[in-house]
């Protein structure tokens, strides 16, 4: 994109992309919700949703319809405006990164030459919504959850950035399509294994998934930052969480696992490979969640500041040296 002048075609493309993406976010939440429950059931040697539709596949749709019709409660002492705003604030920024994700060679919303930076910038807004939710609820448990979330996100943003930068040093581009194109021969998880591992750990923490799900630690803070949210507000938080998972896994796919590359990946068929890889990564996150206990908050911070950030810094320096020498 050399010029910022948009043609009618570009605008139309973005509008269509936006509509598709919003529906993708909802569909993703339904699929992931179902897969998570089924996978948890599998791990725990039970059936999971079974009776509602074949193998329970209608369960999540019915849950969704039910939750829309629930009464919306705003607690008496809550900040009404912020309380209502927070779920929307959580939902909006998670849609935007989808615009620049390269689903296949020609299937993408828009290829910005600073795509990676855009994703990181936009997805950081999410933490603000959690903070607003916790603050507006006027509930001590919510407040704990949101404060934990803020410090956790700030801590884990840094290793994410640093590990992504070491890939950028190799590819010399921030464009998502450019990074995918550079992985034609070899995936970057082999070129940058340290960055890959650091990114996956930090991404789990960034999306507040177990074992780093401290903002909504059930046994400590009941439901954490969304303790006071009922009905649709609550479901928006859940949808945003799944969309966030999709985003970080998509970024991991693009940067480390070859994006849409794969056998028979033509102009559009690459999207299948892309989605397959993303969902595999997400299932790994689900797998981890149902296996491990939760870490303590100071341990979480120690992991970020004492291990992940120094290691990613060293990794970045080494990468820079090698790239410079070659």
């Amino acid at each position, binding site marked *: 994109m050399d010029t910022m002048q948009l043609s009618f075609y570009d605008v139309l493309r973005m509008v269509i992309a936006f509509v598709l993406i919003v529906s993708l976010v909802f569909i993703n939440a339904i699929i992931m919700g179902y897969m998570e*429950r089924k996978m948890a*059931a599998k791990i*725990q*040697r*039970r*059936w*999971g*949703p*079974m*009776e*509602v*539709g074949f193998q*329970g596949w*209608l*369960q999540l749709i*019915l*849950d969704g*319809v*039910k*939750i829309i*019709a*629930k*009464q*919306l*409660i705003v607690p008496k002492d809550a900040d009404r405006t912020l309380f209502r705003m927070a779920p929307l604030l959580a939902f909006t920024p998670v849609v935007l990164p989808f615009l620049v994700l390269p689903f296949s060679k020609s299937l993408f919303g828009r290829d910005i030459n600073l795509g990676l930076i855009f994703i990181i910038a936009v997805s950081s807004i999410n933490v603000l919504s959690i903070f607003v939710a916790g603050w507006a609820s006027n509930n001590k448990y919510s407040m704990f959850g949101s404060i934990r979330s803020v410090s956790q996100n700030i801590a884990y943003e840094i290793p994410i950035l640093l590990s992504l930068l070491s890939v950028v040093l190799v590819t010399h581009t921030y464009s998502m399509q450019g990074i995918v194109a550079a992985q034609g021969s070899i995936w970057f998880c082999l070129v940058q294994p340290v960055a890959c591992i650091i990114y996956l750990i930090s991404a789990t923490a960034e999306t507040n998934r177990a074992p780093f799900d401290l903002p909504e630690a*059930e046994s400590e803070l*009941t*439901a954490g930052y*969304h*303790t*006071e*949210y*009922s*009905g649709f507000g*609550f479901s928006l938080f859940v949808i945003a969480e799944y969309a966030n998972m999709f985003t970080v896994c998509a970024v991991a796919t693009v940067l480390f696992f070859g994006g849409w590359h794969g056998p028979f990946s033509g102009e559009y068929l690459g999207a299948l490979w892309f989605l397959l890889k993303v969902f595999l990564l997400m299932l790994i996150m689900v797998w981890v969640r149902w296996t491990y206990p939760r870490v303590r908050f100071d341990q979480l911070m120690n992991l970020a500041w004492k291990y992940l950030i120094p290691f990613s810094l060293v990794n970045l320096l080494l990468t820079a040296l090698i790239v410079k020498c070659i």
Partner: protein
Amino acid sequence: MKEIERYAQFLKDESEADSTELQGGAMNSFPLTEQVLKVCQANSLWPLTFGLACCAIEMMAAGMARIDMARYGAEVFRPSARQCDLLIVSGTVTKKMAPALMTLYEQMPYPKWVIAMGNCAISGGPFKVEDNYNVIEGVDRLIPVDVYVPGCPPRPEALIEGILKLQEKIAGKRHPWPQRKMKDAVKVHPIP
């Protein structure tokens, strides 16, 4: 005790006054949407993580691998009352607990249902004795109850039956569409 009675009366009045308006809101004016909504509500009853006494263990057992309430969509035990549809009163309610229980009920958003699980919650059970000074004899004195599951404690299967009964109450049908009737139960631990 006076205060508790006043509070209970308030909850009862409120639930009667609001039930028509809040059990689905404006959607109730369209029969078809109402029916669809009822089916959805019946198939997705999220209980509150709330155990009082012995029955709580059987409630947990109902959610575990052998019985698995999740099959009927009653899987998601939410720790916060705001996100629940179903309050399972699983055990003895004492005089000290009564205000907290009523607050929990009040915190739940409409539409909401209550299952009184076990004899203690139904009538005070074995603790309905002459010198009773602390046990509330029946949780329906405090909050409106939809389904009673007797037993001391009831088996997990009885709780599942209670949930199916509640589904019948909500949707008018024992296995509301799209639920299928469960096939033969699988024997998990065969007798050696």
